[in-house]
């Protein structure tokens, strides 16, 4: 049977992808960011997943205002890196896992979570930057990836609790898949940042640290946080953090923290990163 062995959360800042693509990772500005991922790269080399279920948001790339799915699961064979306006990132094409993706879609929809099924989709920095952070520059990603896009661009996004409960349903779906697969679930985006208006540049370190504490030990409490608290405390784009709860819902109530990292800034944003394993 397939199982979920671990969860990863990470910011997915486009400038971080550009720093890797342009060979700037050793520059003084960027070096501390990438140093924070060294432990994780060693960990994932020792614990390679067969499939990553990657929760991210599309940034007006595959989805415009013509169609705004709240939850969209990528069921295609492969997903090309998108041209976001300056040409596609020089990273490998993402290979999907259509059998598992369709299995999850069927199972989760029948558990009352109405997903949108996507058979053709380019993937933007929200998905490719986390892969680059964990796997580095490589001619081919070392595992299959199921892209799972959450709307956080058009208000309202799904609630934290909805994401948390959906994570639980995704876990049940994975555990009912016959093939023996090691699956990781990643929740991306955040942490505090605001990209718009006179308040742009907001960073709230105390909120971010408390968010990580609660995500690890009391996710059911964190899941009750209303949208406006995220936006007020962590900036208008800090709302992306609801996606971390989706990851957390798919893990055990008790987890071990393999790695925890926090750094300000990367471009406009606070970088947060966790590697969590189910406590045995």
């Amino acid at each position, binding site marked *: 049977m397939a199982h979920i062995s671990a969860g990863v959360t990470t910011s997915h800042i486009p400038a971080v992808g550009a720093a890797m693509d342009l060979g700037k990772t050793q520059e003084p500005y960027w070096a501390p960011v990438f140093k924070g991922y060294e432990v994780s790269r060693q960990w994932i080399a020792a614990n390679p997943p067969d499939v990553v279920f990657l929760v991210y948001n599309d940034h007006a790339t595959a989805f415009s205002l013509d169609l705004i799915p709240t939850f969209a699961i990528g069921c295609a064979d492969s997903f090309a890196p998108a041209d976001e*306006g300056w040409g596609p990132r020089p990273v490998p094409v993402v290979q999907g896992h259509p059998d598992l993706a369709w299995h999850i879609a069927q199972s989760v929809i029948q558990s009352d979570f109405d997903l949108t099924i996507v058979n053709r989709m380019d993937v933007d920095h929200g998905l490719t930057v986390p892969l680059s952070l964990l796997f580095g520059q490589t001619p081919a990603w070392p595992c299959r990836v199921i892209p799972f896009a959450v709307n956080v661009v058009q208000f309202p996004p799904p609630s934290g609790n909805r994401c948390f409960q959906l994570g639980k349903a995704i876990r049940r779906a994975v555990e009912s898949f016959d093939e023996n697969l090691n699956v990781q679930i990643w929740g991306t985006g955040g942490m505090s940042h605001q990209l718009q208006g006179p308040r742009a540049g907001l960073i709230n370190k105390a909120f971010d640290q408390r968010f990580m504490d609660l995500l690890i030990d009391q996710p059911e409490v964190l899941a009750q946080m209303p949208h406006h608290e995220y936006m*007020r405390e962590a900036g*208008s784009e800090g709302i992306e953090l609801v996606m971390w709860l989706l990851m957390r819902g798919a893990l055990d109530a008790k987890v071990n923290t393999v790695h925890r990292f926090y750094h300000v800034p990367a471009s406009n944003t606070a970088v947060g990163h966790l590697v969590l394993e189910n406590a045995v």
Partner: protein
Amino acid sequence: MPLDKPYADIPGTTIFDAEQSRKGYHLNMFCMSLMKAPNRERFKADERAYLDEWPMTEAQKQAVLARDYNAMIAVGGNIYFLAKIFSTDGKSFQHAAASMTGMSQEDYARMMIDGGRSPEGNRRRGEPK
């Protein structure tokens, strides 16, 4: 019953909600068109003529021509769509963000390195700084 907006008192912040989205539909879809290289070339060659192909308001067109991102947001723009404009211009997210705060990009970048804008005094309109 009007839509509940418990976020309306956050200073210097426009949440891209139902009202903004309806106002900004054509502006944002114009931005989306800039994801294609041939469209970027046509826009750069004659911005006004390209904008006139879209059923946008004059205020929306003027805001784009002036690269006034706060004005674009006020008339319904969303920052992830507006990103297509500054990408076409070869500018970074930090450049655009700085322009909305009234700071130079250099001062803004320095503020970020020093830990970013504090939430203290920035949670609610009228709150003491």
